[in-house]
């Protein structure tokens, strides 16, 4: 048999304009969006007026007002003189830190990808070779990723193709540089990151800019934080090397029986060196915090020098499988007869991981020397009334997971008209949870399909019609759950003793999660597959579900994983594919619609303060509602004289927000609906005209709710996080008719901020339609371009993340990106040739 060689080269490039998305949304804060800078300054003036009139103390102002490049006191003095204040305000109005962030923090996200494929061979011996290289400069300046890959697959057959050996090996190397990991500093919008000559300027971080006082300034390291310099001082490299090899030996005993042995070996090692040199703020800050000044004696418990965090981890998996397959047909050429397929097998997988982290203090890069600090002594922290030990970061952990499973499946096919199938499997592993295996019978499923269109009596004009039904039982154990008490062991640094603390309590009632599911389906197709429809309806009943339940603190722990819930679910899935001809243009479209709802039928966890239901994170089940739900606390609007948010407790107005949030009476909660889409799907279209094609992909999500963000005054004062809703806040009596944003109080009322963020005023419908992608592709082939020697060239260009076509909420929020960071459109160019 003749060998044939196939070569293909793929070149692709994606450009993601990161600046655009940062600027539009989060950047230093998503919340100043569109808020004119001067407006915020005006309101800060109000804060100063409170100070001057004696309503607030100077300490409180220092928290709020720490102007860039000038100490807090200077700013304060300036503010206290109205003439100078105006000039200062005017100069600040011209600054917009977003411009600086764009210049020094962000860059375009560009990915370049090159792939070369070589395929050669025939049925006796064939190979496939792949060489790939990717290069990505991420949206943050200073970060870069490179990826190399080499893969080789080979197939060889002996004994007239009865014995076949498949081997493959793949090696890949990722080299990542992450020198810009910190989020942009939370600073005033009118700050500057560099001076007019481009030198990095400090911004306040952790403490006042004027800190420390002059007394100890010579004994401490420079304590200023210059975000622009941080990026160039950072040195954080990660290399990931991954090797995977596969061997499969297949032997055909006869026409019906085939045996197969499979072995896979996988190894991945990750090495991370994060050197925080003495120039970085992290290191300077840590050394300063621990500096001991005693008159003229100065000592540095955190050794002078860089800090190197060296992390290593490895993952190794060995997978051995054996399967026997039996296939038999009783066939005639004209008419399909009966067919039976049996498959039985065992799989065994052993996974070992090791990870360690070691921190070297006082690190000198040139000679690779370091200094061991004294970890045992608690040192007073500079400028804080507290004492701490030098952070001990060395750690090493190994895990070892072993799995074994056996399975058997069978399919019986009668004349392609009836198909009966069944499967059964049993899993075992060394996780603590699955030691309860013996309490559970194997998992199984049965199925039946009937292609009515093949029946003798079938007279409908639809050429293809099939009915399907399956029923099965599946089970699941949660790895962290255990029927025994689990202790976490460690070695005490100071005594070298083995020490332990409980992390999971014994639970003799631990059971498998069980889920019974029944599915009915229908498939149909019209002539020439112009319309293909598949539809499925399912319902399921899950019991003994695991939930991380809050437990009585008197037990000695606050959380435990328990079989504590049961729920039901149902839904349908609809797929429609159509192929139409619009004159010379061919239009292919795919429409998918998914619907699913669930309901908690029972929940045995202990009562939880209602505030917890409104927090992000693991959902807390509540009987009668979907597991993932949006709840809110009730309000009676704003107080007409003060603008304070009026809470509701037991149906009565209340300002005691903490009592309401701490109560466990869920009648104080409002349920809005599911927090995940109950209807979702996509609508993809491809238009073809000769060798040119255009695809337009649309996705949609309906039937759910989300909680949007709003102004949080505590965040505003403490972290400079503003929000556009600030402009809508209650300011004068009467405003309560038009706004739900509470009045600003200084200092902020934290419980009120929390209560407001949990209130129903901020819950919105999440429904939306998104334009996912538009792509244009052109195939240059030999048929049209005769100068091409051989093969084809595919060229394509497209745009991803085009944004929303429609949304239900009137606040301009993209429900998939509630906290800002809406990805901006990504441009993609690609070129693929075959030789």
């Amino acid at each position, binding site marked *: 048999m003749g060998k044939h060689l196939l070569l293909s080269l793929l070149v692709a490039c994606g450009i993601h304009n990161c600046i655009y998305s940062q600027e539009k949304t989060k950047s230093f804060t998503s919340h100043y969006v569109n808020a004119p800078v001067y407006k915020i300054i005006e309101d800060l003036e109000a804060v100063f007026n409170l100070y001057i009139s004696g309503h607030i103390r100077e300490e409180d102002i220092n928290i709020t007002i720490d102007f860039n490049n000038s100490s807090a006191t200077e700013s304060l003095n300036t503010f206290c003189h109205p003439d100078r204040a105006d000039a200062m305000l005017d100069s600040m109005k011209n600054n917009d830190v977003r411009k600086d962030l764009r210049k020094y923090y962000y860059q375009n996200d560009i990915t370049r990808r090159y792939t070369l494929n070589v395929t050669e061979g025939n049925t006796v011996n064939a190979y496939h070779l792949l060489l790939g290289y990717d290069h990505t400069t991420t949206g943050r300046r200073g970060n870069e990723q490179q990826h190399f890959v080499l893969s080789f697959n080979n197939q060889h057959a002996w*004994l007239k193709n009865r014995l076949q050996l498949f081997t493959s090996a793949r090696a890949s190397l990722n080299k990542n540089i992450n020198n810009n990991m910190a989020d942009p500093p939370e600073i005033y919008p009118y700050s500057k990151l560099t001076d007019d000559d481009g030198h990095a300027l400090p911004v306040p971080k952790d403490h006042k800019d004027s800190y420390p006082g002059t007394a100890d300034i010579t004994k401490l390291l420079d304590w200023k934080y210059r975000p622009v310099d941080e990026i160039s001082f950072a040195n954080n490299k990660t290399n990931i090397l991954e090797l995977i090899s596969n061997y499969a030996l297949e032997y055909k005993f006869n026409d019906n029986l085939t045996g197969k042995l499979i072995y896979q070996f996988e190894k991945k090692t990750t090495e991370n060196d994060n050197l925080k040199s003495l120039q970085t703020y992290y290191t300077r800050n840590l050394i300063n915090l621990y500096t001991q000044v005693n008159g003229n004696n100065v000592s540095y418990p955190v050794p002078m020098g860089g800090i190197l965090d060296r992390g290593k981890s490895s993952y190794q998996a060995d997978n051995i499988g054996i399967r026997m397959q039996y296939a038999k047909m009783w066939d005639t050429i004209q008419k399909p007869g009966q067919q039976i397929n049996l498959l039985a097998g*065992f799989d065994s997988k052993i996974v070992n991981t090791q990870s360690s982290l070691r921190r070297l203090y006082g690190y000198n890069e040139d000679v690779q020397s370091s200094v061991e600090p004294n970890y045992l002594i608690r040192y007073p922290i500079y400028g804080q009334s507290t*004492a701490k030990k030098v952070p001990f970061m060395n750690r090493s952990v190994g895990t070892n997971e072993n799995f074994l499973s056996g399975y058997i499946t069978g399919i019986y096919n009668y004349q392609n008209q009836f198909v009966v199938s069944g499967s059964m499997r049993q899993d075992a592993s060394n996780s603590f949870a699955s030691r309860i295996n013996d309490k559970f019978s194997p998992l199984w499923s049965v199925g039946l399909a009937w292609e009515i269109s093949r029946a003798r009596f079938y007279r409908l004009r639809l050429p293809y019609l099939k009915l399907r039904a399956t029923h099965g039982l599946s089970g699941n154990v949660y790895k962290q759950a255990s029927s025994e008490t689990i202790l976490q062991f460690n070695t005490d640094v100071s005594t070298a003793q083995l020490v*332990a603390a*409980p992390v999971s*309590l*014994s639970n003799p009632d631990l059971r498998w999660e069980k889920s019974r599911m029944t599915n009915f389906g229908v498939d149909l197709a019209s002539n020439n597959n112009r319309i293909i429809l598949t539809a499925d309806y399912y319902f399921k009943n899950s019991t003994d579900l695991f939930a991380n339940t809050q437990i009585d603190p008197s*037990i000695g722990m606050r959380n435990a994983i328990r079989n504590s819930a049961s729920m039901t679910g149902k839904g349908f899935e609809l797929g429609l594919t159509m192929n139409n001809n619009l004159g010379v243009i061919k239009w292919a479209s795919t429409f998918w619609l998914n619907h699913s709802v669930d309901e908690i039928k029972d929940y045995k966890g202990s009562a939880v303060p209602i505030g917890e239901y409104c927090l992000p994170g693991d959902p807390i089940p509540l009987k009668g509602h979907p597991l993932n739900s949006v709840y809110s606390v009730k309000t009676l609007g704003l107080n007409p004289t003060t603008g304070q948010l009026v809470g509701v407790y037991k149906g009565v107005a209340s300002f005691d927000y903490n009592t309401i949030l*701490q109560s466990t009476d869920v009648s104080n909660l409002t349920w809005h609906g599911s927090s995940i889409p109950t209807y979702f799907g996509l609508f993809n279209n491809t238009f073809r005209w000769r060798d040119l094609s255009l695809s337009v992909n649309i996705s949609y999500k309906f039937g759910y709710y989300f909680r949007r963000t709003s102004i949080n005054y505590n965040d505003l004062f403490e972290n400079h996080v503003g929000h556009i809703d600030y402009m809508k806040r209650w300011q004068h009596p009467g405003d309560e008719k038009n706004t739900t944003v509470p009045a600003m109080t200084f200092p902020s009322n934290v419980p009120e901020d929390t209560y407001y963020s949990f209130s129903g005023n901020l819950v919105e419908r999440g429904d939306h339609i998104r334009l996912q992608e538009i792509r244009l592709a052109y195939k240059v082939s030999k048929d049209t371009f005769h100068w091409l020697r051989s093969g084809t060239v595919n060229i394509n260009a497209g745009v991803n993340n085009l944004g929303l076509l429609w949304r239900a909420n009137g606040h301009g929020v993209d429900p998939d990106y509630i906290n800002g960071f809406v990805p901006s459109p990504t441009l993609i160019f690609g070129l693929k040739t075959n030789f």
Partner: protein
Amino acid sequence: MRYCKSIILPFAITLISVCFGTSCKKLHEPPSTELQPPSTLEELAALFYYQTIMNYSPGLNELSADNLYQLYDFWLQRSPVQQNAYLWKPDIYGGDTAAGDYDLCSAQVLNANIVLEDLQKMSASSNPALWNKLKGMALFFRSWAVYNMAQLYAPAYDPVTAYQDLGVPLRQSSSTSEKTTRATVEQTYDQITRDLQEAVPLLPAFDAINNNLPSKPAAYAMLARVYQSMNQHQLAERYADSCLGLYNQLLNYNTLSISDRAPFNKTNPEIIFKSNVTDKADALYELSDSGCIIDSVLYQSYATNDLRLKAFYIINEGSGLPISKKSYNGIVFPFTGLASDEMYLIRAESRARAGNTTGAMNDLNTLLKNRWATGTFVPFTTSPDSTVNLILQERRKELPFRGLRWTDLRRLNKEGYNIKLTRNFNNTTYTLLPNDRLYVLPFPADVISVTGMPQNPR
């Protein structure tokens, strides 16, 4: 194809059986090196070696007592729970659920119960000495934690009403199905003393290196402390005596480097059982610029030649006010463990109350001889009527910031000592009257809502 069948099949079967045979064995290996169920006595012991849980005790009692006052700016930097406890506010948590003291004591009870349960499953025959020791330690630690909890959340022991006064939860197992309820004060102290008495024969002799673990004298010392808090002085005397019979070493303060910030260290020979105030109570840290100031009456009560004045306190250069040095075992958190000096004082007080003035004064002078500058100490003498008061004064001077004062205030006020506490703070005067219900701290709000236990009225 006979060739294949004869070679490949046996080969495959052998290979497979080897592979899966190994796999089956591997199903019993623990999945992680650091997370495991305890399988040996040594691994159970690791729970008690964990000093971060086992050798800490509550701080809210000391913060509420009268050994200290706080400067306003210092107070402002504390957590809300510490701020409110200092001012005897009715609700000390203010919605904060991170209630360190309750969780700490509960975690100690849990570790003790885990050990008691697992000991039942493990055979004693492999190492009977260790098995017994662990059981004794578990009983000691459980009573240690329950007693500390009772000093915060249960009223002082009153023999008349103890059968109906509400005490603290007495959890008997680590099982989450055991419902938590409040025992009576009678039941609470019953369990504390029963556990300790059962522990005595099981516990090892004192070992200075391992004073983080309980020993026989530690159990006696604890019994003495418990009975004294119950105003049962006869029993307190008996157990203080038993303790001192096993261990009675005192440290002569003349041998200390008295001007150091840390005149004591962890080898302080008076320590019988090590414990310090939890790090949640950072107001009590030893710090060079601390705003936690020594009560002026207490500070002025020391005589000039009394070395404790310089060993315990230092004048802060910034404020000119006296603050604490590093604690009795040399670290920044106040020492709250058991020590021989406390035993001398318990026996002295009990003897004085029983009319044994000579015995009482012997104990007091034995102790104070080691506290005064060499050559300056003249043994105290007193009339039988004022012996108890003299010993109580000396007790206050010897044991400040040892977590004992709050309990003393509660038991002495029960006996009619009528000690009224006041704090002048930020232009407001706060008062705590004798036997006030504010002497019983509230349970954290979430504990009440989850268990349905009755809250302490405040």
